[in-house]
């Protein structure tokens, strides 16, 4: 342990601590921008400079504590220099905060408030930057906001192993750009959106589709329906000051009804459907020597990743569409029939924790009647914006129930939102379908939690089934490497592109503290526990759907509506 003094207060901390961490122990918040507790130390922004015993300035984020150190964090010298750095950042930052998606939720803005800076102290606001990159369906990069902290670069490389962002040029031309300065839409970007959440300012954000939703709601000729992903209900409360993990399903339904949606449905329903289809597909592969391991296909960021980086392994992917797209297909066929509406008159809106879902919905193969199945995808954050816009008091609005016929879901569908959830849901069904026996213990705790790669074994009939779960594409790529060289020891693998699974998706509220993800996960399992049915194949609405419309899993109709195919994103030139 190391003993030091910060602002004349003694503190004893482990020797691995930095000054920044030691100050936190004393409840002193040294200003930071490039620093993020989940990332490596960069030392780029220089806002965390503090004064040492020799009256020198040293960076708090990258300087380790040492015995007898005396640190001052709040002298005139320190404040003036921190302010100087802040003003230099601002001088090359688009200060039109009102137009910014992060207005009110911006780390730079917070610091300006702290330092009482209301306007750039330099005469001109000289912004030298690339033009805004709007080259794709999902993510916008606004270079005029970028403060070059490098957090997005680290996430893209170290966490996601996508590696498409890089520092380019030097001096004032220094920028963070997609590799070879291509527009994002022409890169291998998988649109996971993790860069959006790690960005301290508004330099990266999802393409905003809220206007499209409002227009559809306004259009009387349209029947507008919504589906809500499993992860949204445990996170959107954070946008309205609720604790992470607050379960707000009823409030979400009520808010959507008030916004004017004709029907509000639950994506958990099609999550159950996915389990039936995917579980049956797995059993089929197992029994008929199909390609194993089979890998889940619900996460569109993951699909983009494998299509871009390992097209040779595409046979391993389940052919199942994601729950969003299964819902979309059913909404334009089964539901349209049932309601007696022409599919073109139904506008299907998805509310997703995900940015890549925007891209997925626009894939040409995702159309069951000649046009796209899911018309608009908005993120959890955009949904919150709509709720605020409508003046709905989210915290107090009275709970309402989902509509029929896609309103009933099992606990298995609910846990899709957390890493390991799809695997657990699948095992619950696969076991019972294969053995015809009831599972005694339906909680598969080995596949839960935030460990990067999780493994489990389950004895089904006389076979030991080995499964693995990975979340975050960096972890996923490790399992993928084994698959590529034919050395994967598993039968079934679940992969989610984002850390924590969908609850940590790129479209989620920006996590305010490191334990947010964990709290959301706990809430998801709470939803599961409280359900009448906890296995997908027990969901009566699913049974009804098969009876009325689909016939059987992997049947003719399912094949057309609920399954898809994959192809290399960047076919090799011949």
């Amino acid at each position, binding site marked *: 342990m190391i003993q030091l003094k910060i602002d004349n207060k003694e503190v004893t901390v482990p020797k691995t601590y930095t000054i920044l961490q030691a100050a936190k122990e004393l409840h002193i918040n040294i200003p930071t921008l490039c620093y993020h507790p989940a990332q490596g130390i960069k*030392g780029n922004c*220089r806002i965390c400079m503090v004064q040492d015993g020799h009256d020198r300035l040293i960076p708090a984020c990258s300087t380790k504590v040492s015995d007898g150190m005396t640190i001052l964090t709040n002298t005139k010298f320190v404040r003036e220099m921190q302010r100087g750095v802040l003003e230099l950042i601002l001088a090359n930052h688009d200060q039109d905060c009102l137009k910014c998606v992060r207005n009110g939720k911006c780390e730079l803005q917070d610091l300006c408030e702290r330092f009482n800076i209301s306007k750039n102290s*330099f005469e001109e606001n000289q912004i030298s930057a690339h033009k805004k990159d709007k080259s794709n369906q999902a993510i916008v990069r606004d270079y005029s906001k970028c403060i070059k902290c490098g957090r997005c670069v680290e996430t893209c490389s170290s966490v996601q192993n996508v590696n498409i962002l890089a*520092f380019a040029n030097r001096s004032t031309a220094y920028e963070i750009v997609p590799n070879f300065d291509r527009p994002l839409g022409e890169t291998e970007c998988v649109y996971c959106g993790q860069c959006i959440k790690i960005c301290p300012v508004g330099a990266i954000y999802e393409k905003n589709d809220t206007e499209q939703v409002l227009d559809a709601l306004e259009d009387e000729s349209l029947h507008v329906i919504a589906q809500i992903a499993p992860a949204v209900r445990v996170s959107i409360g954070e946008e309205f000051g609720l604790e992470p993990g607050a379960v707000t399903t009823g409030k979400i339904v009520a808010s959507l009804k008030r916004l004017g949606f004709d029907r509000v449905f639950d994506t958990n329903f099609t999550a159950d459907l996915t389990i039936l289809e995917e579980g049956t597909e797995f059993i089929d592969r197992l029994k008929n020597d199909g390609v194993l391991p089979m890998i889940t296909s619900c996460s569109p960021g993951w699909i983009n990743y494998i299509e871009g980086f390992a097209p040779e392994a595409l046979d391993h992917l389940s052919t199942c569409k994601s729950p969003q797209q299964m819902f979309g297909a059913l909404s334009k066929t089964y539901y349209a029939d049932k309601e007696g509406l022409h599919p073109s008159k139904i506008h299907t809106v998805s509310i997703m924790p995900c940015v890549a879902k925007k891209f997925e919905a626009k894939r040409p193969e995702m159309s069951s009647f000649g046009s796209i199945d899911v018309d608009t995808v908005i993120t959890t954050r955009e949904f919150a914006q709509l709720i605020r816009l409508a003046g709905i008091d989210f915290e107090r609005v009275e709970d309402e129930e989902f509509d029929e016929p896609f309103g009933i879901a099992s606990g298995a569908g609910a846990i899709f939102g957390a890493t390991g959830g799809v695997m657990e849901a699948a095992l619950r069904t696969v076991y019972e379908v294969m053995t015809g026996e009831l599972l005694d213990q339906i909680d598969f705790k080995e596949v839960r939690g935030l460990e990067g790669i999780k493994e489990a074994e389950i004895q089904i009939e006389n076979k030991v089934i080995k499964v693995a779960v990975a979340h975050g594409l960096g972890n996923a790529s490790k399992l993928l490497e084994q698959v590529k060289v034919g050395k994967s020891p598993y039968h079934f693998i679940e992969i989610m592109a984002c850390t924590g699974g969908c609850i940590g998706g790129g479209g989620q509220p920006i996590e305010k503290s490191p334990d947010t993800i964990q709290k959301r996960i706990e809430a998801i399992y709470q939803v599961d526990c409280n359900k009448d049915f906890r296995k997908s194949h027990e969901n009566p609405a699913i049974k009804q759907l098969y009876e009325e419309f689909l016939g059987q899993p992997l049947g003719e109709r399912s094949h057309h509506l609920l399954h898809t195919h994959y192809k290399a994103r960047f076919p090799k030139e011949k």
Partner: protein
Amino acid sequence: MNRVQAFITANFDCYEYNDIDRYIELGGFEALKKAIEKGSDYVIDELRTADIKGRGGAGYPTWKKWAIGHKRQAEKKYVVCNADEGEPGTFKDRELLKKDPFKVIEGMMISGFVFGASKGFIYIREEYAYIQETFKEALEVMREKKYLGHPVFGSDFVFEIEVFSGAGAYVCGENSSLIESMEGRVGRPRIKSPRVGEKGYLGYPTLVNNVETLAGVTTVLLIGAERYAQYGTQESPGTKVICVSGNVKNPGVYEIPFGVTLREIIYDIAGGVEEGRRIKFLQLGGISGPLMPGNMIDIGYSYEALEQEGFSVGSGSILVADETNRVIDFLVSVSDFFYHESCGKCVPCREGKRQLTRLLKKFVSGTAKGKDIKTIEKIAHTMKYTSFCGLGQTAPTALLSAIKYFLPEFWNLVGDKEVSRIGEGEWK
């Protein structure tokens, strides 16, 4: 006291760059032999007596650096000779590499021996492409004569040297950027701690020394530290290779004992100022050094005397500007240089340069206001105290010294004096 004293440069013009036999006749490899025979502690002791300090500009005592490095245990270690001589006004390493390459190589071998490395690199700036070629030739001769790649002087010490070409970035003269560059990445500085001595090239301890430092090591061991230390001053023993440039009659590289005054250097060694003009200012230690007004040139050229007045030896560059130069024009050229060379990594250096360059140009165009001086000073201070590496920290040095010594020149260029309420001296 002699005004010039050739120790480090003793072999200049005495042999062709690849004439190893002649180099041996001149005492070549005696230093290495002595090091191997008497051991690392002897070398470190000699360097302590001679008190050679890092000649790249940092001025850190070489013996200390080597003593720490010598003790460090590792599976593998590397030594690097930093020949990325990018400091404007500095060209002494170029002369050493051209005129006495074997002495530098010998110094590298001694550093490898003491540090415990069997592999060395010499990082030569891209602009010295022709020297890279001659140096490679010298290395080839060394291999033929079995000084490299074979045990030397009956010991088991085997050493190999590889030439590495820089790619044209000033910041790569900074050790950690240099290592980044060698590893194939963009030359940008690393977070200090671990320093490269602990974790350098490919993660192994790496001892980086300047060309002149290494030549100095060879020299000290060859002639003996005591003899070397008879020259110079008490606190700056021995000699220094300096580069005199600018408005002098005989610009060039000279070796002087420490303690000679700047006046003697300029007038007696470099032939004085062209057409007998008055000296307006000097810039010492390269473009990252401060400006010294012409009336201060009676200061002795030594670490301690210069430091006392807020100056430093730095790389050994002495740039002389006569009265025909405007301070502001000079500052703009300094600013342009750093504007071009900032790596962009940290805010103060990148954004500070952007603002400073813009503000300085206002003085040139006559649109500056009084308050701009204050803004310049504020930005310069922010850069000095908060930048990530030495580049950003020293980029505003010339500017801050100019504000200290030549404030009226700024004031005379302010376009709208009435509007500004800030009087001279208020910002001091």
